[in-house]
């Protein structure tokens, strides 16, 4: 089930010295929009960047199952329950393809999961916020999946083939999730006063954390320039954030609820919305582990991992016995 053998392949490749000619030839392939495949030579830093990014993405899918899973047992209709469960299942599926895409770069899923549990690897800061009402399930789909799509659609053209291909499928499903989330919000906003208040409260709490999903401002983003040159990234953090704000503000107007930003206004000359300053201290705190749910999310993942150890060991022991019988 796990491809630990790949670790060795990675080590061998790392022993090859990176000459200026090799780096230039690699960049030429990128510039020509060729896809880099798993067996192709690549600079070690390119490999490391992709492993970091793809595994963070995979971890985000897995941790993201928790805030949404929080409403599975309380979803207000059977149809909503089924849709939410299908969504949470999609996230598990995304985690699976993304771990597989990362494995093509010479790491094992076990290593990556180990890094998540030890706190070494990060996941999207957004999943450290709590889902407190049913409207949060709508807001997460609308805003969080909406922001994720802005980030992820360009990744379908990422220079690394296995990641780009995984993202094509992920984006199709994310797009469903975004529409389903918006539809929950629309139903609430057309419902009773209490339901509309629930929707407003969810927007008020999820707006700023959603803007933080795009990462630091371009001037502060330490990985951006190199990732753009390697065509892992196609747009900067600030470009994507602006696009998200422009689209989402109009959707909030359609819903009849207010974006919690007193500085938000439409700028006729640029054709874009200008918006207030993000609370970067809050962002840094959440990234550093001090968000409302960081501890709870990791503890739950760790508990599931530990509680499942005896089951995985049993499956392994059974498989070994069967293999021994087959060999005898």
């Amino acid at each position: 089930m796990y491809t630990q053998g790949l670790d060795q392949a990675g080590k061998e490749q790392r022993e090859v010295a990176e000459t200026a000619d090799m780096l230039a030839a690699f960049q030429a392939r990128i510039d020509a929009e060729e896809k880099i495949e798993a067996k192709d030579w690549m600079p070690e830093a390119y490999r490391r960047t992709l492993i970091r990014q793809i595994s963070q993405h995979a971890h985000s899918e897995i941790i993201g199952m928790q805030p949404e899973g929080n409403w599975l047992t309380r979803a207000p209709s059977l149809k909503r329950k089924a849709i939410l469960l299908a969504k949470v299942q999609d996230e598990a599926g995304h985690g699976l393809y993304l771990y597989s895409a990362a494995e093509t770069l010479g790491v094992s899923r076990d290593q990556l999961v180990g890094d998540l549990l030890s706190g070494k690897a990060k996941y999207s800061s957004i999943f450290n916020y709590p889902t407190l009402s049913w409207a949060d399930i709508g807001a997460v789909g609308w805003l969080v999946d909406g922001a994720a799509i802005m980030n992820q659609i360009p990744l379908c053209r990422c220079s690394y083939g296995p990641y780009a291909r995984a993202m094509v499928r992920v984006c199709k499903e994310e797009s469903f999730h975004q529409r389903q989330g918006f539809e929950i919000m629309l139903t609430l906003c057309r419902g009773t006063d209490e339901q509309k208040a629930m929707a407003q409260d969810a927007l008020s709490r999820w707006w700023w954390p959603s803007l933080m999903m795009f990462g630091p401002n371009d001037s502060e983003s330490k990985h951006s320039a190199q990732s753009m040159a390697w065509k892992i990234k196609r747009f900067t953090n600030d470009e994507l954030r602006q696009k998200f704000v422009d689209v989402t503000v109009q959707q909030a107007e359609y819903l009849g609820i207010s974006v919690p930003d007193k500085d938000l206004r439409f700028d006729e000359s640029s054709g874009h919305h200008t918006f207030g300053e993000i609370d970067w201290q809050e962002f840094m705190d959440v990234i550093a582990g001090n968000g409302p749910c960081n501890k709870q999310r990791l503890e739950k993942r760790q508990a599931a991992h530990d509680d499942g150890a005896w089951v995985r060991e049993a499956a392994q022991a059974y498989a070994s016995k069967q293999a021994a019988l087959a060999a005898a």
Partner: protein
Amino acid sequence: MTSDEALVAYTLRLADNALVLSQRMLETVAAEPELEEELAHANFALDFIGQARMLYTQAGELEGQGRSEDDLAFMRDENEFRNLLLLEQPNGHFGDALVRQFLFEAFYLHLLEALTRCTDEGLSAIAVRALKEVQYHFRHSSQWMIRLGDGTELSHARVQASLNNAWRYTGEMFVADEIDLAIQENHGGPDLASIQKLWRRDVEKTVAEATLTLPDDEWMASGGKQGQHSEHFGFLIAEMQYLQRSFPGATW
């Protein structure tokens, strides 16, 4: 009880089984031992929710009082639910939840198979669809029974204890009451005594392959089919129904 009333009651029981089991399964989403298992588990729970929806809709139409699937799922009280006690039992560890699934699916599979031949077209159509789903669920749960039973010493001991603990809830599946008999007589429904033989055969086969021991048939719990549940059940229902109950008449 008229023949139609019995059919409504019977359909509701099937719906309640599917819903209550899926509700329990939802509690362990994002806590399965393996990512692949997470996907399978969600898939099976989705199948059960889908079955509950079809069955509630069917029961509501047969009843003719305008009750929707959600009215039946969210607006009935604890003692109006007629699911088997086995299905409302808390998840416990992976082995406990697995045994609950395995013992029920071994029964449900044969029940659905018999229902595909019943004379009520609506029910038989649902049974045809559900049977396909439950066939692969049962393969999955049987395989896990074998892996855990014939895995490590620890897993063997744990799943044997799970089997011993759950066994007392299996008797209720086969006790035919007036509703079961009415469906059998008037609609060509299942004969529970025959289902029990098939169930026992399948359970014995897997338990033997898993190197486990079949528990003795001692005291058997009952009451779920009559609306007398275990203490756990009120909490499950309260959690599931809270939004619908807090905002009566709202659309979601």
